[in-house]
């Protein structure tokens, strides 16, 4: 108490008042500390979402350049056969470049021509081919076609790369910017919904890359996870909660389940690599193996949730069923399990949501390869959404950073949907006995 000892000549009441004021100040400080901590944590959450939204949303649109393409028969179909095969193999790059040069005739030298060609994506050739194959009567006509712009010009149009500053530091030269601005002033530049991002697989070109391959891979892997982990998890929970005798063995099983729930995810990846790939010889990079590893990870979550919700079913239900002659198994399958099902499903959805966001174990089993195709079977090499995020985040092009953020948005949307459905399920079926 020496801290608060009254100096001589000051009344005890004043001293007590001062002391009280000090204590209240400390109280307020403590309170503000708590509020500050919460604000800090939620502020980080806000910054995280804001950065990702700001980076990811521009990907929803894609810059297109409208060119009056002369579908010259000399390039497309020199012999005039009109066969689809000839048309499919024609030189569409030349077609696209000719169209560009007619709009911007001042690009003459080799370097200028090359700089000009960058204005269109490599995918533009494909788009021209598809247009011709869809409508062969185009041959010989001139028609305005909207083609996908190159990644740098797309960024220029969206204002995400610098227009000023030293030319050597910039992705685009003054000339390129001037050409683009001329086209823009002419009404030949537009931004359209980027449907390719949702319908294409991965690509080396940012403007052509899409998430569909990763989404399909994720669906396959999660389907495998659900097929394995849900029945096994529910069965294990039913056994442990309803049938297992309380003995040493059950104790070991329970300790194991709790331990498994706390093992770092990368260790499951090591298990997958050593056991599933090297021992059983299952294919690398396949959603099948990914799903198996994730199932092992999700299993403890489902078991723990299922046990909790089985435990919540009151014993009177069991006694009533047993009393009218049901066997223990009938009691469980006809009465206890249906009543516990909403809780089990909620736990399963939460476990699946966690599995959906898991990346590290999938890296271990080789799901980091560049895969442009959309997988059609569970044994095909595939990528999954979080791994796609990882791969794109590593790519040097700035345009890929935006696509990473957009892929994260897709991932978060799915996660939010899953968690919301879990919350709704819980709200709707929650029963207090």
């Amino acid at each position, binding site marked *: 108490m020496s801290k608060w000892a009254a100096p001589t000549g000051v009344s005890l009441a004043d001293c007590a008042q001062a002391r009280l004021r000090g*204590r209240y100040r*400390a*109280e307020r400080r*403590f309170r503000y500390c*708590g*509020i500050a*901590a*919460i604000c800090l*944590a*939620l502020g980080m*959450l806000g*910054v*995280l979402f804001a*950065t*990702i939204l700001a980076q990811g949303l521009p990907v929803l649109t894609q810059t297109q350049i409208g060119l009056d393409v002369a579908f010259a028969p000399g390039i497309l179909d020199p012999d005039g056969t009109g066969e689809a095969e000839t048309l499919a193999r024609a030189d569409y790059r030349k077609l696209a470049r000719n169209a560009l040069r007619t709009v911007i005739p001042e690009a003459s030298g080799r370097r200028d021509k090359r700089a000009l060609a960058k204005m269109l994506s490599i995918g533009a050739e494909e788009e021209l081919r598809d247009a011709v194959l869809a409508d062969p009567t185009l041959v010989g006509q001139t028609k305005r076609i909207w083609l996908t712009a190159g990644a740098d010009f797309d960024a220029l149009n969206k204002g995400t790369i610098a227009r000023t500053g030293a030319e050597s530091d910039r992705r685009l030269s003054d000339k390129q910017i001037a050409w683009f601005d001329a086209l823009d002033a002419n009404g030949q530049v537009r931004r359209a919904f980027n449907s390719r991002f949702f319908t294409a697989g991965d690509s080396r070109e940012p403007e052509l890359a899409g998430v569909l391959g990763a989404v399909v891979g994720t669906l396959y892997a999660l389907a495998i996870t659900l097929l394995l982990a849900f029945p096994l*998890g529910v*069965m*294990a929970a039913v*056994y442990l909660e309803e049938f297992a005798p309380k003995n040493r063995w059950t104790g070991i*099983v329970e300790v*194991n*389940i*709790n*331990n498994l729930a*706390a*093992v*770092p995810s*990368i*260790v499951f990846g*090591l*298990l997958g*690599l*050593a*056991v599933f790939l*090297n021992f059983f010889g299952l294919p690398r990079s396949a959603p099948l193996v990914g799903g198996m590893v994730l199932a*092992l990870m999700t*299993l*403890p979550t489902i078991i723990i949730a299922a046990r909790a919700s089985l435990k919540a079913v009151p014993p009177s239900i069991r006694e009533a069923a047993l009393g009218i002659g049901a*066997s*223990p*198994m*009938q009691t469980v399958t006809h009465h206890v399990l249906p009543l516990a099902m909403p809780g089990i499903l909620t736990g399963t959805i939460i476990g699946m*949501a*966690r599995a*959906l*966001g*898991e*990346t*590290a174990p999938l*890296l*271990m089993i*080789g799901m980091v390869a560049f895969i442009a195709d959309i997988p059609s079977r569970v044994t095909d090499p595939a990528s999954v959404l*979080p791994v796609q*995020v*990882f791969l794109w*985040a*590593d790519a040097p092009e700035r345009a890929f950073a935006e696509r*990473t953020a957009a892929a994260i948005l897709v991932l978060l949307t799915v*996660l939010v949907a899953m*968690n919301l459905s879990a919350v709704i399920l819980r709200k709707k079926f929650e029963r207090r006995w």
Partner: protein
Amino acid sequence: MNLLTLTTALLVLAALAYRVGQRRALRLRTDQRLAALPSHYGAYVALWCGLPAAALLVLWLIGESQIVRLLVVGALPAESQGLAPAQLDLVLDEVARIAAGTNLFEDDSLAAAAARYSALRGISDLAKAVVVMAAAVAGLVAGQHLVVARLRARDAVERLVRGALMAASTMAILGTIGIVASMLLETIRFFQQVSPLAFFTGLEWSPQTAIRADQVGSSGAFGAIPVFAGTAMITLIAMIVAVPIGLMAAIHTAEYASPRARAIIKPLLEVLAGIPTVVYGFFAALTVGPTLRRLGDTIGLDVASESALAAGLVMGVMIIPFVSSLSDDVINAVPQALRDGAYALGSTQSEVIVRVVLPAALHGIVGAVLLAVSRAIGETMIVVMAAGLAANLSANPLQATTTVTVQIATLLVGDQVFDSAKTLAAFALGMVLFMATLGLNIIALRVVTRYRQAYE
């Protein structure tokens, strides 16, 4: 006939068997008393039909590739037969590709083997289908004959189901055994090449080894201290961020916040735990890292763009909800009587919390922090994306460091010869990681349960 069709056919047959058993039981019921419900007889026959056939199918699938392999090796050209197992695998893969018509180039020397391979595969597929379906039909017939009125079908079916439930509950043990066994074997192999002493006390970590004998490359150094030190530093930074913020947030939600504010704040904090770690990694690598670097430039500090600080800060944010929700639970579990006693002595609310509630909840909070540490040690994606690869033994958080998980990930991603010291080192690190997290979790759970007992 492919596997999917075969499985579907088997399921259809089992469904049919169910109907057959049920019908038969219903017919019996017209003049006799049954020992179980007709549906139990149905299930009984369905199990007789489906189970042996399914078991046969699984056995076949396990044995098939081995037997086909043995027979195909016989048809290989003589020089290929004498190859080492690993190279033989490559040749056999090629044979499979030729047989499937997906090989990129023609190789006539393997044509005979490929033809043999497709022939064997065809025979095997056909035989598999015939044998499995025959077993199913035989099971159906046998099961149907066993159905008599006094058969206790319910008991029989339920015994089996109970066995299946028990088998399912041992999956967790199988998982643990799988983890320990796979890592232990590789770790032992690693320690045959690198001495444990060098691993646990060595100060230099450069795992790049020559893959082939004739290659020029470093011989590799496997002193794991820098890796452990990096892990410790990033975990420490994460804890410096997460523990005060998480604890203060928990105190506020548990003691000060109104029920309504609590209902909003708690789920929002939980959102932080639900965000995939790869998202945090992206945030750390592309936003926090560059921001720190710019900040460092303005005040004249040299900050690497991949720094321990960036990874640690972001990891700390990720860990906050672990600390806060567990601490919140233990603070709520402190008996109200303790608080009331302190209030009666004239304490302010903060004095009650700091002098009474927190000491009473200390065990639980320590447990929560330990669990958070174990989570931080095992976290992979944030550090892989934001902390760098170079194993520097330095205490400067502004430099790039590496962690156990980063090393595991980088050592095993990409094509590797599987028994080189480099890949085996990843398993040794994995084993250390597994042991460390397991130990922390066990201690944390002990601490928490002992605390709970004190007030119950």
